[in-house]
């Protein structure tokens, strides 16, 4: 019966609509006072939603109809792209958010599930970007979509060089190894003439099955900025990566990773192969970062060592922490905030790293589980009747 279904599911539609309206306004508005007003209104709405029990209802409805929820959010994302199709800058921001969210999914698997530290996320992103730059130039006839996947594979392969030292060391030592790797990667790029040195390399646009991404969006499909194609592809990438992350989380793979994170000794004594799960988390995470980097390179048109700093890795870690360690859903709004806010507030732009560092310190000090903590794993499905 339609009415009863609607009664159960209206909160999901409401959520999707709210997500659409707020992201659209954030991306579309340009005056700083408008953004500031919006920043004031959103928490107020959230507060009242919580007070009047709407957020509880939403959570219930989302839990009851996961497929429907995803469909609604996909629709609102598509609607967002359609309504913004003529705005270059807004689309560029949106695509960047999607790509950052993709890397953060990888970090969620590494930090949040397996408890592996990785402070070189941007280096793996960079490896993907440089793979795209190199493979796209040479006339090897590889299809561009495949190069994106290859970018991920190369990142995972180079990451596997670090597996042995990361596995043999714990906590702080592993952190050092990834930080050292990130610095090493950047210095290597800067002095390597084949990879363009400090100037970097030019990357030509994507061309998938005759669809030239550098041209504006085909008029038959409504027309629009050439960023529409990239944003759509980034959306597809994020959807794929997100589904994979959720699948890993809900399956025995995630269960094993969780147990490795919580207690290595206990896991090992229950017959869980600790090394195997760490390797898997590390490799999958770097694969995501690499794919995201490859797409980013072709979108921005060039790659240079200056875009792969330690501070960018830290920004990514703060996205994961802000969203709530291990919560794949809340990473997306966190990525949105971290990427879009500094762009919209030119005042903040200069201070953004300082600002996010302070926010992360406050979160760690007072609310270490993040803004939206990861929900407890439910081994029995309680929502089905």
């Amino acid at each position, binding site marked *: 019966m339609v009415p009863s279904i609607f009664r159960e599911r209206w909160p999901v539609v409401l959520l999707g609509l709210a997500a659409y309206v707020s992201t659209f306004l954030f991306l579309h508005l340009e005056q700083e006072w408008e953004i500031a007003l919006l920043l004031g209104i959103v928490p107020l709405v959230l507060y009242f939603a919580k007070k009047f029990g709407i957020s509880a209802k939403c959570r219930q409805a989302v839990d009851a109809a996961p497929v429907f929820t995803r469909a609604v959010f996909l629709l609102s994302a598509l609607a967002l792209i359609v309504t913004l199709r003529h705005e270059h800058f807004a689309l560029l921001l949106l695509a960047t958010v999607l790509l950052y969210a993709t890397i953060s999914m990888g970090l969620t698997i590494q930090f949040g599930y397996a408890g592996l*530290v990785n402070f070189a996320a941007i280096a793996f992103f960079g490896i993907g970007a440089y793979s795209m730059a190199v493979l796209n130039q040479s006339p090897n006839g590889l299809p561009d979509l495949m190069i994106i996947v290859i970018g991920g594979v190369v990142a995972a392969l180079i990451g596997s060089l670090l597996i042995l030292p990361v596995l043999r060391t714990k906590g702080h*030592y592993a952190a050092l*190894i990834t930080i*050292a790797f990130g610095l*090493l990667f950047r210095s290597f790029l800067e002095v390597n003439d084949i990879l363009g040195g400090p100037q970097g390399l030019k990357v030509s646009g994507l061309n998938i099955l005759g669809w030239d991404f550098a041209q504006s969006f085909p008029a038959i499909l409504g027309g629009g900025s050439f960023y529409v194609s990239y944003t759509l592809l980034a959306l597809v990438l994020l959807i794929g990566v997100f589904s994979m992350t959720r699948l890993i989380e809900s399956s025995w793979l995630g269960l094993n990773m969780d147990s490795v994170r919580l207690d290595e000794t206990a896991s090992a004594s229950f017959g869980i192969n600790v090394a195997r799960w760490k390797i898997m988390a590390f490799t999958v995470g770097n694969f995501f970062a690499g794919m995201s980097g490859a797409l980013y390179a072709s979108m921005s048109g060039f790659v240079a060592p200056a875009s792969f700093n330690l501070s960018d890795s830290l920004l990514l870690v703060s996205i994961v922490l802000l969203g709530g360690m291990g919560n794949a859903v809340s990473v997306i709004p966190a990525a949105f905030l971290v990427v879009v806010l500094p762009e919209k507030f030119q005042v903040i732009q200069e*201070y953004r790293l*300082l600002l996010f*560092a302070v926010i992360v310190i406050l979160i*760690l*000090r007072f609310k270490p589980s993040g803004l939206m903590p990861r929900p407890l794993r439910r081994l029995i499905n309680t929502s089905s009747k």
Partner: protein
Amino acid sequence: MDIGFLGQYLINGLVQGVTYSLVAVGFTLFFGVLDVIKFSHGDVLMLGAFTGLTIYLGLDPLSLPPSITLCIILIASILSMGFVGALLCKFLVLPLKSAPPLNTLLITLMFGTVIRESVRLFFPNGSNPKPFPELLPTNAINLGNLNLRVDSVLIILFAVVAIVLTNFIINKTRTGLAIRAVAQDEETARLMGIDFKKTVLITFALGSGLAALSGVSTGLYYQEINFGMGLMLGVIGFSAAVLGGLGSVYGAIVGGLIFAALQTIGAIWFSVPAYKDVFAFAVVIMLMAWRPTGLLADRTSERV
């Protein structure tokens, strides 16, 4: 290659090596007492150098002799960084004592970012490199190809004095006894009436003071400081500490010298000097894979 060039590389490497050792000793001290890594160490070092510069600019109108200015700068910057280290420990590190180690690591990393960004944004014209005053005699003794700068010798001397002093404090004084006791076993140390919090704070102050010294001496040596200098020095110091084995003071000193040696070898080996860091870090990563707890691992530091 003639012996003069070799000696030149040796002296330059030694100056860098002792600087790294000073940073590494700090890391090892913090790890010893609290099992934490303070990733803001390099930025505290940088802040120490900038504090020194600020004091110099303040003292400039008095036109004191360079040696007195230098003493004031050193003492003031060591004391103020010791204070900063203790504050960091009290408000950010100790409250997270029971949290996962990752959180401590992140909070200090972010604190370092706050220091770095604050200097870049709020120090007048802070995003550009700053000239550091020449307070040490710059004359040099020429021995064939070896150009022995007096300031290098003095910097090595400062570092050696500081390390000997630290060693004396740790091994010969009551405070040092408390530090060693806390490092071995926190609970037993508490039962024996040692003020745990005070001991940890003193250790953090001590380590941060050493960082300030190496910051100022880096400034004196290169006659230039910038807001990002701490990042690399911090990571190098940490690598050195890890290389020697966290928790061991001797290991940290040896680690610092080894890292400088690796860089020097890298610089000689590859004609492009920028490859020296790539080489040194790659070797460190390999050494870590080979001996995960460092070369001179403290047996008691392994607590599983």
